[in-house]
């Protein structure tokens, strides 16, 4: 929900980044305020996922220019784990498997780390078990998930639900969900989107990175941004997504090219 008086959570200015020496982000600008839902759309290779990873601090990417303020502070002064503790969450496009580490143990450590950061009490394994089971209901998850290794042998849909479960536990200020809709069947999409909607409130913000308009039927964005060659070239209301769905991306590129 757009409100003029809400606080700015994320302010990206002229962000440039490379991977393996190749420049992918070529001057991204984005302002995200509390209570808002943003959708970033764009063709393959336009820098959407890179943008998400750079914000979270993936070591393969090198920031070469620009600035990012997270709640007014320099995001790049923080290590990846510090960004997470400060409330920046990345829902992974391909959550990695971690064999041998029980999901319950992993979730509890992540939860307690963030709680400690916020000056709140940690939960012991029994308390946490009750707490996490409650959150799992939100996503219609089977409690078996807790005993399995992190993401190991999970189906695509299970992995995505596990991501949103982590978002529910960590209560981030800004959640960037990288193609959370990919690989989901229609039921899973409904459940995952329902979870995200319940977690959205006036104090946090959600940035959806997606290829398809489909997800936006379930999670209504306040803004739709279109990326092209490492830049946001067009921003509009929700209706822009529908237009992209019917017309493709080419007309945006052409218009951006003409404007440049």
């Amino acid at each position, binding site marked *: 929900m757009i409100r003029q008086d809400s606080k700015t959570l994320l302010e990206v200015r002229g962000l440039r980044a490379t991977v393996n020496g190749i420049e992918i982000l070529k001057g991204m600008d984005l302002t995200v305020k509390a209570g808002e839902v943003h959708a970033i759309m764009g063709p393959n290779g336009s820098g959407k996922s890179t943008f998400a990873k750079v914000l*979270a601090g993936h070591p393969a990417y090198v920031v070469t220019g620009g600035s990012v303020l997270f709640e007014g502070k320099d995001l790049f002064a923080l290590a990846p*784990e510090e960004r997470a503790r400060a409330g920046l969450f990345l829902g*992974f496009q391909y959550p990695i498997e971690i064999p*041998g580490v029980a999901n319950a143990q992993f979730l509890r450590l*992540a939860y307690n780390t963030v709680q400690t950061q916020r000056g709140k009490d940690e939960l012991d394994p029994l308390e946490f078990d009750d707490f996490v089971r409650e959150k799992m209901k939100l996503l219609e998850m089977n409690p078996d998930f807790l005993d399995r290794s992190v993401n190991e042998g999970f189906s695509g849909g299970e992995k995505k639900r596990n991501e949103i479960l982590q978002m529910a536990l960590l209560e981030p200020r800004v959640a960037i969900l990288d193609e959370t809709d990919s690989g989901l069947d229609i039921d899973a999409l409904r459940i995952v989107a329902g979870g995200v909607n319940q977690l959205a409130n006036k104090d946090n913000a959600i940035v959806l990175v997606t290829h398809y308009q489909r997800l936006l039927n379930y999670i209504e964005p306040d803004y739709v941004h279109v990326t092209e060659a490492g830049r946001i070239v067009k921003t509009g209301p929700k209706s822009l997504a529908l237009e992209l769905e019917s017309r493709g991306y080419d007309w945006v590129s052409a218009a951006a090219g003409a404007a440049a």
Partner: protein
Amino acid sequence: MSSILQNLVNKPYEHGFVTDIESDTAAKGLSEATIRMISAKKNEPAWLLEFRLKAYAHWLTMTPPAWANVHYPPVDFQAISYYSAPKPKKKLASMDEVDPELLKTFEKLGVPMNERAKLAGVAVDVIFDSVSVATTYKAKLAEVGIIFCSISEAVHEHPELIQKYLGSVVPVGDNFYAALNSAVFTDGSFCFIPKGVKCPMDLSTYFRINTESSGQFERTLIIAEDGASVSYLEGCTAPKFDSNQLHAAVVELVALDNADIKYSTVQNWYAGDENGVGGIYNFVTKRGLCKGVNSRISWTQVETGSAITWKYPSCVLRGENSVGEFYSVALTNHHQQADTGTKMIHIGKNTRSKIVSKGISAGVSSNSYRGLVRIAPTAAGARNYSQCDSMLIGDKCSANTFPYIDVRNPGAQVEHEASTSKIGEDQLFYFAQRGIGAEEAVSMIINGFCKDVFQQLPMEFAVEATKLLGVKLEGSVG
């Protein structure tokens, strides 16, 4: 982030110091005269000298094994001192009489044995450069008929047991290093659990090599009679030296009918520096004989130290329905080389064995699992299950698995599973994105990886082992 991984493994060795105790060290070199000297120093009976000389004669005909996947310059066996003992003083009756320097060493190692032994209820037979210095809880164990003492002492006080069992599992000519050990062993532990006795506490020995260039040749013999059971713990650290130190121990276990022996090791000897200079050569022969029906021998090892590890704790399953187990975590870093595994020799009917091996390689190290499962024609109904998993940290290390399976009975069932995984930067990034730092992440991954083995360790040891892996990998991520 690979530098993160590199750093996690680079914590300097903390136990590098030499205790300043006067040593009685023999001149370097090995000959029949050396062996006679050792035997005389130890005031041994004639049959033991014969045992040694027979082993020496065998050894002279043998060459060091070359089949292992480890590489090092040839060892000059004439450049080693074969006997080193703290200057003999009067016999020690209590801990108060132990050299304070020695106690300080244990302090540094985190083994405040006078307290720890009591608190933990562990009897510690301390080996300090080959000679046993103090034995605690001996009296308490004696009440139930358990003998737990140094092997030198046992030679004098229980010669009939030593004569009967010494070399009965690992014959004097078994292999190059076992023959060498049989010829020159200076001390070690002896443990005897009589019929029907369940040992009321875990028995523990801390080994420590102290004098530079003194070869260490411990000899351990554990016997569990009918229906007896014992859990034995062995833990090791060594001071930091630049010249390589040879260690060639022999451990023999004998389990009679319905007996149960559990042998756990946490090994953290000096592994050499980051460039591979120095470190212990650990060439050990460990073998257990399940002699009686329904007997069981279980080896658990956590190997984190030594420049080179050559070690295959094995089980000979002769008794019907006997069970052999091997649980291993071997961690190598920097230039360490490990070739370790087990042998399960099934002879009796319906014998079973289980092998769980976890190898972790970091730095430029090489880590090999080598195992043999042999099913003899007599071993009808024998079963084996083996699981060998390797984990790589960084991209300059290597992991190998060499499973040998030799089945001569058509009714046997043998299963082997293997996997290789890698701690990658994407895994660490995933943890980081959830607020969890790299060290904690690696520790969690490694502990998860080793879980099946750690579960086998006695509680106290399991905690120690978990910490040890953490320390060993500290700084390799960061």
